[in-house]
């Protein structure tokens, strides 16, 4: 007769101890908004403390007016594998944006506003860059309501102390 051994128990809590992630989102195009958000979302579901800092064109991701209308431009983007001349034709950006949204939807990836809400619900922290706000004449009221504050670059460095930092 053989005796079976007790099944192992996954080490859920030990792996995540103290790990921290800071992601700087500096782009305002649809295709460049996603990498940071996907990573942040994955980190949060791994129990990793996660901070997102929106700066320069990344502000478009948290500006109430623009966050739902980010675009993907194929012009000058070699990843489209299309002749550059064609990509400059009128309507091409709208068309490419439409296609990308459809693809994202097809694999059940949410749009930017819903994605940010999901990240915030998962305990992620959203921060806006002070200089970008000043430059674009925007205040807290103009920004997505889950943004916790408009902070300076040094504030960000303080709160991301000990974090792995990723620049997108």
């Amino acid at each position, binding site marked *: 007769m053989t005796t*079976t*051994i*007790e*099944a*192992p*128990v*996954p080490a*859920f*809590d030990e792996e*995540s101890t103290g790990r921290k992630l800071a992601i700087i989102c500096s782009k305002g195009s649809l295709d460049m908004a996603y990498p940071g958000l*996907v990573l942040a*979302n*994955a980190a949060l*579901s*791994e*129990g990793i403390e996660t901070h997102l800092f929106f700066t320069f064109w990344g502000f478009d991701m948290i500006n109430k007016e623009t966050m739902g209308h980010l675009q993907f431009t194929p012009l000058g983007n070699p990843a489209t594998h299309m002749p550059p001349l064609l990509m400059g034709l009128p309507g091409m950006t709208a068309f490419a944006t439409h296609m990308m949204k459809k693809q994202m939807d097809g694999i*059940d*990836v*949410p749009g930017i506003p819903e*994605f940010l809400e*999901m990240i915030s*619900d*998962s*305990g992620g922290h959203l921060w806006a860059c002070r200089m970008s706000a000043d430059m674009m004449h925007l205040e807290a009221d103009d920004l997505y309501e889950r943004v916790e504050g408009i902070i300076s670059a040094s504030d960000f460095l303080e709160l991301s102390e000990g974090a792995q930092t990723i620049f997108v």
Partner: protein
Amino acid sequence: MGLSSIAGHEVHVDQEGFMTVYDEWSDELAQKLAANIDLELTERHWEVLRFIRRDFEQQGETPTLRRVSNTGGIPIKELFDLFPKKPAKKMAYIAGLPKPAGCV
């Protein structure tokens, strides 16, 4: 990894301890698996477990948190309260399902 024992029952698990045979799971095992990771199951936990078991049966894969929230009706915030830190993996573990494979 093969055959192991959980609470006196012989079941198949992978290297980490996730059960690999859907029909070997039972309510009793869920209680034991939850206790293994220091969780006590409430009615709300059971709602989640029943939803993801049913969804796995229908879709052939473990639902992501977003799906549990949008389709199962249990908000993401609450999932983090019910299964702290790593909700997606913890609920799959207790429900006897593989870890969710999706990125979002």
